[in-house]
């Protein structure tokens, strides 16, 4: 049997690349269990679960996680509704300016977060809105909507138009057709889009910085921790948790849509 052998140099380069990407994460994991307190000294001093206990005992961490979960949940819910509606509107009908609207809808994900952040901050000021939970949720929704929209649009494109016609033909009006035929077909793409949106919102920091006001989300809390070297191990523990919370939904989204050609929105 003939098999193509990959040259060893190429293999080495590939594994080297992977190591470069993931080594820093491993360092975080390792030092979450290290007995020494202040710095990343090598070799590791000893194994302890002490920092986990410390982290779980701290109210500020708990508060930050609560805020982040709340923001992510609300932004995702908002995005699911708006993204689905936008996808439905733009997928079927051809109307003047459709391409323009599609571009405007996708733009927030291409735009640097810092621009979205500044723009939102100004807009909120004009609208006399006090920065807080609401403004963070709205800020996050700007890019979460895109994720949901992309997933739903991809699925709608593969939904034959004859299905909706068949439903109407059999006596269902538009809403009934949506409820019984379209929505069940969208279920997995909504779940996937929602999970990705949740994960993105949960660790977003740039837009959050501009729109948070006095609220402290988890990423902001972690940024603040940089100024406290004695807290490094605790920060490492929290970082691990964040990893877990964001990786699992992304893997889930991948699993749900892996048989589809285009899972959109992995761009940010």
């Amino acid at each position, binding site marked *: 049997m003939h098999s193509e052998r990959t040259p060893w140099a190429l293999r080495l380069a590939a594994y080297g690349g992977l190591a470069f990407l993931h080594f820093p994460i491993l360092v975080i994991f390792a030092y979450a269990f290290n007995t020494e307190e202040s710095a990343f000294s090598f070799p590791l001093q000893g194994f302890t679960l002490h920092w986990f206990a410390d982290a779980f005992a701290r109210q500020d961490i708990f508060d930050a996680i609560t805020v982040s979960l709340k923001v992510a949940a609300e932004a995702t819910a908002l995005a699911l509704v708006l993204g689905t509606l936008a996808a439905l509107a733009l997928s079927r009908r051809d109307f003047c300016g459709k391409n323009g609207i599609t571009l405007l809808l996708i733009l927030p994900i291409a735009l640097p977060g810092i621009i979205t952040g500044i723009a939102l901050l100004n807009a909120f000021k004009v609208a006399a809105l006090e920065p807080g939970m609401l403004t963070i949720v709205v800020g996050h929704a700007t890019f979460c909507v895109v994720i949901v929209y992309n997933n739903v649009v991809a699925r709608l494109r593969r939904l034959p138009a004859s*299905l909706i*016609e*068949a439903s*109407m*033909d*059999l006596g269902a009006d538009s809403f009934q057709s949506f409820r*019984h035929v379209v929505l*069940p077909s969208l279920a997995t793409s909504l779940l996937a889009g929602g999970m990705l949106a949740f994960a993105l919102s949960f660790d977003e920091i740039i837009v959050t910085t501009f729109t948070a006001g006095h609220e402290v989300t988890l990423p902001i809390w972690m940024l603040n921790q940089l100024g406290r070297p004695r807290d490094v191990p605790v920060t490492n523990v929290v970082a691990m948790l964040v990893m877990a919370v964001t990786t699992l939904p992304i893997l889930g989204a991948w699993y749900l849509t892996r048989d589809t050609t285009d899972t959109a929105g992995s761009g940010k």
Partner: protein
Amino acid sequence: MKHAVEFDRVRRSYGAVNAVDDVNLAIREGEFFSMLGPSGSGKTTCLRLIAGFELPSSGRVLIDGVDASRLPPFERNVNTVFQDYALFPTMNVLENVAYPLMIKGVAKRERYARAEEALAMVALDGFAARKPGQLSGGQRQRVALARALVGRPRVLLLDEPLGALDLKLREQMQGELKALQRQLGITFVFVTHDQSEALSMSDRVAVFARGRIEQVDTPQALYSQPASRFVADFVGTSNVVDGALAETLTGRRGAFAIRPERIRLGRFDGAISVRGVVREVAFLGPVNRVDVEVAGRYLSAQLPSFSLQMPEVGTEVELAWERDAAHWLPEAA
């Protein structure tokens, strides 16, 4: 008389193109009616006008004697069997068939009982729990049929439903569809581009060309008395003879159609005969097709293949047909 479906000067245009152009049509209660034509002839658009997926640009579509031109699909008592079957992939077979009953608000127990009944009607009992993806093309077709019939519509629309099936299955389904229609007494409107399908199944056939109806008639009449050159050519095969040759042979001006099976070899009393050179002999099973060049044009004859010695290509033969076998086509409008 009240008609199941009526078209009153219906036009459907897309921009400058008239997909359906000034069509008048009356489909009788309980008849098996076919719309036959090449692709792009407007037959499918007419079907979609009845279903309500298209609205007429002008004119009226009446269903059951009532103007339905502006009614949405879900307010029309007609159901469609789609070309791609359009079964709902997230529901199983039983749920698919029960769908129109669920929408109507029929109680669960009753709608499943009626759906089972409809499945039995198309010989699919035992498939209720399957998903559409687990069925063969022929089975999907039957599910689509059961789903369209379970609500007992006034009219059943069929959009080339047999196109995706292989030949044997197609012939079997043709027989079953016809039997089902006779048994239920529901008006069937059947769209197809296959002329033999239309001829074998229908009570009446409308032949479409370029958005217009060329002729509406029984299959026998379409075949023996085509109203135009197009119909003569599209329904079965025909030799159309016109111009100088027609005049020399018959002493009459105009164009006539002569079916290949009416042409024989040899010379007969009282028959019209003509000499030509054999250019092609093709064995078709029950018959042989012999193409003969006569005065610069081809005449095609079908000769039974069981008895005759076939002429050699290149030899000169005499062709003959009874005077009344020729059908004179109306002057082109």
